Each structure stands twice: as structure tokens, then as C-alpha cells.
């Protein structure tokens, strides 16, 4: 191949031209992707960014020839090495799929076969695409796992998907996708289900592999931070329409489309939040001392000491009136368990006092009475609302249970509550499925507010929402806090959101608080190694701040939370580098 044709090939390895995707028939026909065009080159990364419903994932599926049957592509072309993929018969497509164009998905657990070991799955891929056969396949599987820096390769090969952590599974998925050395790698939200430090590892890994194999990468994401870290060129999509298409630098420095500007403005950025007044001189509403949550495990054998999962190990903090205390940490650190324990949804040890009243061990009427003062908002507004109840029934239920309000009084109160959270009062006859995710979260907030609580525990309340909606819900929470002098316990994994909202921040790691202090102390002057690591991993939606995540690539071994029943954990000691700033040593 001459140099010139090689360059030619590099220029347009994959090109999508005026692609349109439609669903439905006749009058119900809906165009979900319209006039999408882009070209992808070897060794370069193109990001398709957009919120849910923008058509970004469907576009990726169209390239793979995996669109659902109900979808039609009335116009457009997808050219891969001068082959038109849309009209390619399935038999030919199968040869390309996985071999030339590989894909990784958001949820690695559902993409791996739970009945086959990691080794079997990798070797099968190698054999199916005739990369290697016999012991060669095993050799190839080993090499690929090493390439994605999976520790203890030989042992991993024998393990099954459920034995690996989320990050390790995603590494295996990447190894499988890269095994055939594909020309194009499509990654659909590859890090969305992962913790930030794991996300940083995976992103670093993908960059590395791309450099090594000169792969063209199509990265689909909703996270502008990931875009800034990875992309060479960006396509911004909204409701199936391309809003803007530009090189990364231009997009971030001079966004043209108003939608892009709005999107970039809505992204919470670490280090940009305004000052917040300290609330520590206000009275304490919630006092938590040495909170422990343990889940007993079934005995493995008779006469062995029973074991237990130590989800929360001795957490203590104070929450003041009108204050927001953020609890941050990665999945499995015990932050949600802490919230659930405080709501008495789980049995716990230790003490938690709400306005001086002990919550531990409350039952029946006493517990019911306490619930008027402490309420919770959950992460998934889809799951938190009974789909068979109308909004009136759902938001009005606490009023019925606690105050036995008559129907017309409830209607009035529910209408007022809905207006307060920014929904028209007359929507109360509708059912949850008729609302969008953001609106549903507003409904959940209205329900939590119905009893006029003093404390609201918000467990990842905006994590399931699109960024633009996220900003609105956060604003609502702030307004309500000012209005009712509410105290929030704000549980989140998102540092930027926490920075915006929280007066004080506690960092949790394997069931314990490793650092707690005012927002500025913890987020801007972190003392504990884990806090630093967490902050270093947050992708920043800024140009010229592309970070080197190499330091994070080495797996950080988290201690095993399963302990024998009689194990006594070493007491945690804190130092106080600044007033009100405590760091575990």
C-alpha cells in the first residue's frame, strides 16, 4: 500500500453520512436521529455527547447493524472502508462485527456471559474470529488481560464474571473488544456505571490502548468531563438532532450552538462553587455517634465463628439546622447504608439523636412520629413512586397517614406542594409514568416535604438525571432549604455537586469517615490520601486540563468488609489540622 492511499484510508476509516433513524409506522412515525454525519479516523477519538433521548446510543447501534427491528433507516449511509454497512447482509455484517468494529457497553455485568469463565469467553472470541486457535487462544487471552492491566491474570482467567468487581469486568470487556485488534472501537457510556477512580482507570486504559493499536474510537457519553478528557472531536446531539460538531478545543472555548452553551453551563465544575456561609454556630439537629451497621452472613460450616459484613463502622457526625452535610465516597463505602440506618430502614448499633430524641430502637407510634421530622429522597425516582398510584395519592399519602386530612384538604395541600417544587397543581390526577425523570424527582421531593420535616436525607438525588435537569433540581433543593431552614444529609458520589450544595463534607471509605470538615477544607485542602485520590479522579470539563490518571491505574486494594463476628476493629483516631477539620490517621 502506498503512503498516499494509507493516508486516504486514515482520513475516513468510518464515515456516517446524513443518517436518519425512525421508529413506528404511519402517523406515529417518529424520527429519533436526523441528519447525523461524521467521519472517524484511525487513532482519533470522536465523542457523541448528549443527554438521554438524544439518539446517541441508537447511532452507535446503527453502525454495528444492531438496531432493533422496529427501527428503520430511511436515509443515509454508513461507510466503513468503502463498504456500505446499512445495506450489508447480516452474514457479512457478522464478520465485521467484533472483528473490525468492536463495541463495549455501559453495564459490563450484563454484557458478559455469567455461565462462562473469563478465560473461556476471551478464548472463544479469539477462536471465533480466527485470531488464534488451541493454546494460542489461551496465550492471546492472557496477553490481552495483561494489556488491560488486570492483576493476577492466571487466576482471573478461571474466574466467572460475578467474582470480579465492576471495574475489573469493564477491563475484561475492553480486553475482549480489543482482542481482535479492531479498526474501530465503539464505547457506549463505558464508565457511567463505575466509580470515579475506576472511571479514571478505564479512561486512561482506553487512551493507552488506542495509542498502542491506533484504533479509531467512537465514545458515547453524557458526561462533558469525560468528553474533555478523551475527545479529539465532538458531536453534540439533542433530541436526535446534531446541535454542534466541532473540534474539542473550539467546542469548549467557543461553543456556537445555544444548546451546547447551556449544556456546558449546566455541568457542575469542581472548584467553581461560590462561597457558602458556615452554619456550625446554629443548633445541632442530628447527632450521630458511633453508628454501626452489620449484616450477618450465613455460617459456612457448623461450629465456625459466624461472619458479618461491616457496612458502617463507627460513624459520628453532627448536622446543624439549615446546613447541608455531604457524604461522599465510592460504591460500597457505606454512605447509603448510613442514610438508611438513620431512616430506621435497617437495624443499627450506636446512637443517632434527632433534636435530642434517640432514633435507635424506635418502634410503632414513636417511630411514626419521628418520621414527620426526618424524610428521605431516593436516587431513582422511577423506582421510588408506586406506578399504580396517582400523584395526589402519592404526595397526599403522608398527610393521610399522619394528619388524617380529608380529601379536599389533601387536594389543596398537594396542589400547593406541587407548585412549590415547580409543577402545576393540576397535574395531581396523573400517574408517575406520565412525567419525565426530573419531574418525578420533584414529585418525590414534594412528598418528602409534605410533613414539613426538619431533616431530609437525600441519597444521590440527582445522579439519575441529565445535567441540565440536575442543575434545576439542585436549585430547587437550595431554595427549599432557605425557605424552610431545612437540614440536608446529602449523599453523593459526585464531587462537583457536593461542592455546590454542601456546607460541610464527610468522606467515607470502607464504612468509616476518613475526613470531615468544611467544604473548603475537605475539597480544596484535602489531607487524607483517599480524599486526594478521589478528587484527582474527577474528570473536569475544561480544556487544557487533561489529566494523567496513570497514578490511579494501580489497583487500590480496598479492605475486605467481611469480618468474623468477634473481630474488634482498631479504634479510629483523628487529627485536627485546622479547626473543625478532622482527618483519620
Amino acid at each position, binding site marked *: 500500500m502506498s503512503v498516499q492511499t494509507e493516508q486516504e484510508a486514515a482520513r475516513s476509516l468510518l464515515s456516517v453520512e446524513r443518517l436518519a433513524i425512525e421508529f413506528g409506522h404511519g402517523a406515529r412515525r417518529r424520527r429519533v436521529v436526523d441528519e447525523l454525519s461524521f467521519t472517524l479516523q484511525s487513532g482519533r477519538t470522536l465523542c457523541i455527547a448528549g443527554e438521554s433521548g438524544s439518539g446517541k446510543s441508537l447511532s452507535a447501534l446503527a453502525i454495528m447493524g444492531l438496531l432493533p427491528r422496529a427501527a428503520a433507516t430511511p436515509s443515509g449511509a454508513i461507510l466503513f472502508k468503502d463498504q456500505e454497512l446499512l445495506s450489508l447482509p447480516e452474514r457479512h455484517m457478522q464478520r465485521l462485527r467484533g472483528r473490525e468494529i468492536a463495541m463495549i457497553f455501559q453495564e459490563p455485568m450484563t454484557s458478559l456471559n455469567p455461565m462462562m469463565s473469563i478465560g473461556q469467553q476471551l478464548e472463544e472470541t479469539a477462536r471465533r474470529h480466527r485470531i488464534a486457535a488451541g493454546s494460542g487462544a489461551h496465550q492471546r487471552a492472557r496477553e490481552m488481560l495483561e494489556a488491560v492491566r488486570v492483576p493476577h491474570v492466571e487466576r482471573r482467567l478461571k474466574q466467572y464474571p460475578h467474582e470480579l468487581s465492576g471495574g475489573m469486568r469493564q477491563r475484561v470487556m475492553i480486553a475482549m473488544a480489543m482482542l481482535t485488534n479492531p479498526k474501530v472501537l465503539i464505547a457506549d457510556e463505558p464508565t457511567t456505571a463505575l466509580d470515579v477512580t475506576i472511571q479514571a482507570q478505564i479512561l486512561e486504559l482506553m487512551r493507552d490502548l488506542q495509542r498502542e493499536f491506533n484504533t479509531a474510537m467512537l465514545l458515547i457519553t453524557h458526561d462533558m468531563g469525560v468528553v474533555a478528557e478523551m475527545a479529539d472531536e465532538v458531536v453534540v446531539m439533542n433530541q436526535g438532532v446534531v446541535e454542534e460538531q466541532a473540534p474539542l478545543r473550539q467546542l469548549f472555548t467557543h461553543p456556537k450552538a445555544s444548546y451546547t452553551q447551556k449544556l456546558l453551563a449546566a455541568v457542575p465544575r469542581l472548584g467553581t462553587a461560590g462561597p457558602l456561609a458556615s452554619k456550625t454556630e446554629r443548633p445541632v439537629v442530628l447527632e450521630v455517634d458511633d453508628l454501626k451497621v452489620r449484616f450477618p452472613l450465613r455460617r459456612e460450616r457448623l461450629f465456625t465463628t459466624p461472619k458479618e459484613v461491616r457496612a458502617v463502622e463507627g460513624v459520628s457526625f453532627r448536622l446543624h439546622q439549615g446546613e447541608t452535610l455531604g457524604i461522599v465516597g465510592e460504591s460500597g463505602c457505606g454512605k447509603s447504608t448510613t442514610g438508611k440506618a438513620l*431512616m430506621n*430502614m435497617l437495624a443499627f448499633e450506636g446512637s443517632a439523636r434527632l433534636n435530642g430524641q434517640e432514633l435507635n430502637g424506635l418502634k410503632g407510634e414513636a*417511630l*411514626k412520629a419521628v*418520621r*414527620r421530622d426526618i*424524610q*428521605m429522597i*431516593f436516587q*431513582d425516582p422511577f*423506582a*421510588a*413512586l*408506586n*406506578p*399504580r*398510584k*396517582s400523584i395526589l395519592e402519592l404526595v397526599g*399519602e*403522608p398527610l393521610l*397517614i*399522619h394528619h388524617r386530612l380529608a380529601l379536599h384538604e389533601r387536594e389543596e395541600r398537594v396542589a400547593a406542594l406541587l407548585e412549590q417544587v415547580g409543577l402545576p397543581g393540576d397535574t395531581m390526577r396523573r*400517574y408517575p*409514568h406520565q412525567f419525565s425523570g426530573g419531574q418525578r424527582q420533584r414529585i*418525590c421531593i414534594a*412528598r418528602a416535604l*409534605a*410533613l414539613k420535616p426538619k431533616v431530609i436525607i437525600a441519597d444521590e438525588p440527582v445522579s439519575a438525571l441529565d445535567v441540565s435537569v440536575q442543575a434545576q433540581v439542585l436549585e430547587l433543593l437550595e431554595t427549599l432549604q432557605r425557605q424552610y431552614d431545612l437540614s440536608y444529609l446529602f449523599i453523593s458520589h459526585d464531587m462537583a455537586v457536593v461542592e455546590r450544595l454542601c456546607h460541610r463534607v464527610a468522606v467515607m471509605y470502607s464504612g468509616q469517615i476518613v475526613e470531615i470538615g468544611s467544604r473548603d477544607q475537605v475539597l480544596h485542602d484535602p489531607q487524607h490520601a483517599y480524599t486526594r485520590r478521589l478528587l484527582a479522579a474527577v474528570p473536569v470539563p475544561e480544556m487544557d486540563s487533561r489529566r494523567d490518571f496513570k497514578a490511579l491505574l494501580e489497583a487500590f486494594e480496598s479492605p475486605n468488609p467481611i469480618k468474623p463476628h468477634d473481630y474488634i476493629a482498631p479504634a479510629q483516631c483523628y487529627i485536627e489540622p485546622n479547626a473543625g477539620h478532622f482527618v483519620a490517621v
Partner: protein
Amino acid sequence: MAALRIFLTMCRRPSVAVALAFIVIVVVASLLAPWIAPYDPNEQFFEGLTLEGAPLPPNATYWLGTDLLGRDLFSRIVYGARTSLIIGIVANGIAVVIGTLVGITAGFVRGWLGMALMRLTDLMMAFPALLLAIALAAILSPSLWIVALVIAMVNWVQVARVIYSETISIAAREFVAVERTIGASSLRILFSHLLPHLVPTILVWATLGISTTVLLEATLSFLGIGVQPPLPSWGNIIFESQSYFTSASWLVLFPGVAIVALSLSFNLVGDALRDELDPTLKGRR
């Protein structure tokens, strides 16, 4: 008022309207059997058999033909509707009620009570249903109501199993946990939040079960421990004449069609009812 509205919207679907009409016909026929049936169902007509003693095919006198003993098949089917409906509705109704109670209790209360109930269910499942029915029927001398009871005793097991697992999966959903945090009592959660989600399953069993019940009754009748002849039921008409299927196919065909049409009708109505009661499906069809 709401019930009437649901009824009217259901009737808008042609298949449901036909099914409802058929159910009404069967109910009316069973209630007014003495006036509708042209003959006494147990009278053996001399001219109801050919000279060789074979039953007559459908003709002007005997609309659906006659059976092996020269009785009028149409009259027997009309009277049999009574038996089959009672067995189908009563027996299956009792089975669904018992099954639902056991399933919900075991799935919602859990603990030792749930454990005991589910082990009992497993035991019943492992035991051959027919053997149990035979034993019960032998102890209690067979009559229509006893047969219904026996069938209910055998059939509740499957319902309990299904409702149990449904209850567990719904109780594990997040909105149930949320209800607890707003202070809802267990009874409130059970009746206001769990039960509405179980209605579709219960309805499907209440309607689907009718056909299996009618068939089980037929089996028991065949074994001589079901509805006792000469009292007709759709099941025992078929079983009395099944060996003559090739020479007198109408004897099996007409009651067979009646059974299929009745259970199909109940299924269609049940499906429509389930959809109508589910607010998340509104405006999607």
C-alpha cells in the same frame, strides 16, 4: 359508576364483547335450564337411538344429536352448564382465595409462618394431585359441592406459589421501602400498595384456572368420583362418550367446544380487566 365505565370501555373491544356475551349466555342458560332445554336431560328416548342402538347425529328433533343412551345432547349441555359453571367458578374461586391468602402471608410476613406455609405448599405440590383428589373424594361422599371443594383443595397450590414469588418481588421494590419511610403501616402497604400489583396475576389465575378446573372435574367424573351420573356436566359428557369419538364425534365436539369457548371467554375478559385496572397502560393501546 367507575365499574360501569370500566365495563363500557372493555366492551369497546370486539373480542371482549363477544366473550362477555358468551359468558352471559352460559350463565343465563344455567339459571333458566328447565325453560331453555327442550327435553329432560335424563330422559332416554326410544327414538333417540338408531335400530342398531347407535346415537343420532344432529337433526331437527334433537338439535345437537343424542348420546349413547338416547338422551338429548343439547338439553344435557344446557343442564351441564350449571354444573360446569358452579365447579369452574366456585372451585376455582376458593382455590384462588386460599392460594392468594397463603401466598401473600408467606411472602409478606415471611418468618417461621411463611416458612411453614410454603413447606406445606411444597408438600402439596409433591403429592400427586389426582391421588389426593381421589382420597378426599372417597372419604367425603361425592356431590357437586364436595367435588368443588376437592378441586379447590388441589388447585390452590399453584396459585400460592405464584402469588408468593410475586409478593416477594414487589415487596423488594423501592417504592415499598419509601412507603415505610413516610410512616405507612404494614397493613396499609399490603392493601394499598402490594395488592393492586397482584391483581393482574390473581385475575389471570381466576380466569385461566376455570378451564383447568372444568377439565379436572371431567377427569374426576371419568374416574367415578366426580359429579355423579345422571347429573350432566360438560366434562362427564365428553368422558362418557370419548371411546365413540370416531363414530359419534358430535358427542365430544359440542361439549368440547363449550368448554373451550367458556374458558377462552373468561381469559379474554380477565385480560381486558387486568389492562383496564392498570393505570400505566392508559392511552398506550
